[in-house]
């Protein structure tokens, strides 16, 4: 026990003496949390909007006025012809191009139907999808009002049956992106920092040759590993704490659930990460190699965690892969507990899977760690 304590003490000393590492451990993650949480939203604003009005009637002007009134669109230009509009899109001057056909108003009144041409710049597919929804919403809304206005007396017997849906966003009523991005990014930071540091740590001893010196001592494998990894476990929980404080103070993210549960889950989750880190360091010879491998896995884990793209939208095979992604469970649990106030029983499946993961990873890591070769 004394040995473990001494190794832990030594490890902390080394961490705090490493002047290059300290800011990376504490300052950068927090900067990332503040910057990313503000930046990573799926809302598309200030869409550059251009239109070609071939009709020039009060109805067509009313439609354009709708776009003008929307905060999402910056109505930029009125193009005289489709060709000029297309050229402008090629130049990147407009993102969305609306073409109102000739006889727009007349067709609406006479035939009760007409077509609109919408062209969206889909270089960024995600943004294009969102823009399409916005355009559709505005046009539909316009359509609703128009129906009532245009209806003739004779039509009044036939009441328009309009089904209106009013969505309620539970657990995040205003659909505030920060509310669900902050817990996710916090997860990312805790994972990245603990994985990188623990992965590089033992490799570092290999590099400077101290591992060889340690290996000829009577120290036990378990003592050494626990002593080396414990400081990073503490660091991970420390990061979570700082992150939660920032989430509360700066972003005012609701924390409905139990903090104790959050810490309990995180303490197990970090064990998984440390296990992976140790496993990586057993199979690498330099910090550089360890860094690259850790980075490779983190990128996959992050992109498949449901943090930036919903898991539900992934193909089935990818969804199966996400079952092996520890970050996915952490993101789920953090969001569930923080926003929904889920209790112990609700997160039990994730908890058990994480625990199993921790046991397997650490088992593999300890098994592959050799004092002799």
């Amino acid at each position, binding site marked *: 026990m*004394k*040995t473990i304590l*001494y*190794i832990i003490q*030594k490890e902390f*000393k*080394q961490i705090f*003496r*490493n002047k290059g590492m300290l800011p990376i451990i504490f300052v950068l993650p927090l900067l990332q949390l503040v910057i990313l949480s503000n930046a990573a939203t799926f809302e598309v604003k200030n869409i550059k909007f251009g239109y070609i009005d071939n009709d020039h009637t009060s109805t067509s002007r009313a439609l354009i006025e709708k776009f003008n009134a929307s905060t999402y669109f910056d109505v930029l230009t009125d193009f005289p012809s489709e060709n000029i509009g297309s050229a402008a899109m090629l130049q990147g001057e407009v993102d969305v191009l609306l073409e109102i056909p000739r006889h727009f108003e007349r067709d609406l009144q006479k035939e009760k139907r007409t077509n609109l041409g919408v062209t969206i710049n889909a270089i960024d597919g995600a943004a294009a999808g969102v823009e399409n929804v916005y355009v559709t919403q505005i046009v539909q809304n316009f359509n609703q009002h128009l129906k009532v206005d245009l209806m003739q007396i004779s039509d009044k017997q036939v009441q328009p049956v309009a089904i209106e849906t009013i969505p309620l966003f539970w657990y995040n009523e205003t659909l505030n992106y920060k509310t669900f991005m902050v817990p996710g990014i916090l997860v990312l930071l805790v994972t990245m920092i603990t994985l990188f540091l623990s992965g590089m740590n033992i490799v570092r001893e290999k590099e*400077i*040759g*101290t591992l*060889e*010196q*340690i*290996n*000829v*001592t*009577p*120290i036990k494998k378990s003592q050494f590993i626990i002593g080396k990894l414990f400081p990073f476990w503490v660091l991970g929980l420390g990061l979570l704490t700082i992150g939660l404080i920032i989430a509360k103070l700066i972003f005012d993210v609701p924390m409905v659930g139990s903090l104790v549960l959050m810490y309990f889950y995180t303490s197990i989750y970090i064990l998984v990460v440390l296990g992976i880190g140790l496993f990586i360091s057993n199979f690498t010879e330099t910090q550089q190699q360890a860094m690259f491998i850790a980075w490779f896995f983190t990128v996959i884990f992050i992109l498949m965690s449901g943090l930036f793209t919903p898991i539900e939208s992934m193909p089935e095979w990818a969804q199966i892969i996400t079952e092996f992604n520890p970050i996915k469970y952490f993101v789920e649990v953090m969001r569930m507990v923080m926003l929904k106030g889920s209790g112990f029983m609700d997160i039990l499946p994730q908890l058990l899977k994480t625990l199993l993961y921790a046991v397997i990873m650490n088992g593999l890591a300890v098994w592959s760690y050799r*004092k*002799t*070769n």
Partner: protein
Amino acid sequence: MSISVSHINKSYKTVKALQDISFEVKPGELFGLIGPDGAGKTTLFRILTTLLIADEGKATVAGFDVVTEYKNIRNSVGYMPGKFSLYQDLTVEENLNFFATIFGTTIEENYELIKDIYVQIEPFKDRRAGKLSGGMKQKLALSCALIHKPKVLFLDEPTTGVDPVSRKEFWEMLKRLQEKGITILVSTPYMDEAALCDRIALIQDGKILEIDTPEAIVRHYPKPIYNVRANNMYQLINSLNTYEFNHSVYPFGEFVHYTDRRTDFNPKELQAYLESKNLLNIEIEKTKPTIEDTFMELAKS
């Protein structure tokens, strides 16, 4: 026997690092492994310190088998790897404390043993190990290897890259440790250090060439050896190399060590030959062979 090695073989893929190595080191002996870089010295050290498992053969250290009783060995040996491998970002004292703790002891308990060495670096005990000079790093590493009062001390090329004064000091420290009853196995590529050991093993390409005391090894040198000097070293070596009766020609400081193939060699003949090659100020005199000569001779065959 403090260390006993019998028929050890070790290969790295196709490279035979050690071939049929056998030797014994008596308790309290200062035993030297002398050989050039790549001879297999470090591999042998790693096997004896339980870091590596030999392909074949048996070895015991302090009475314990290196494979089955490795745990006991780790308690009773001190190992100083060739490369400085202490924590550069910990201070002198912290390094020493760390190794004391993982061996389950304290600095105070075994202070007597390291006192001689440690007093020299004690003024810098709050300095980080990375900021020490080469000689001081050496002393710190030795202190760390000794902190748990080992029965056997393994020193892998301890003086490589150390200045001549520190080297001399270091060997004096080893002699004092030996007086305290510690068995020492030291490896070095420097032939002049070999003479300071009780017994040496000459090793090359994973094979032991000879094991004996330095004096005996030198005595075994089979031929009379001559110091040859002339005004032009380069031309002298060339001329000797083309001399039909030469046996060996090695530059040795300001001289060339020369041996002849004939048993009735007369230096006068050589003098005449060299004069015919337009060399001036020729001196030829008999000299005593050194360990280096012996090594070269053995390595040749």
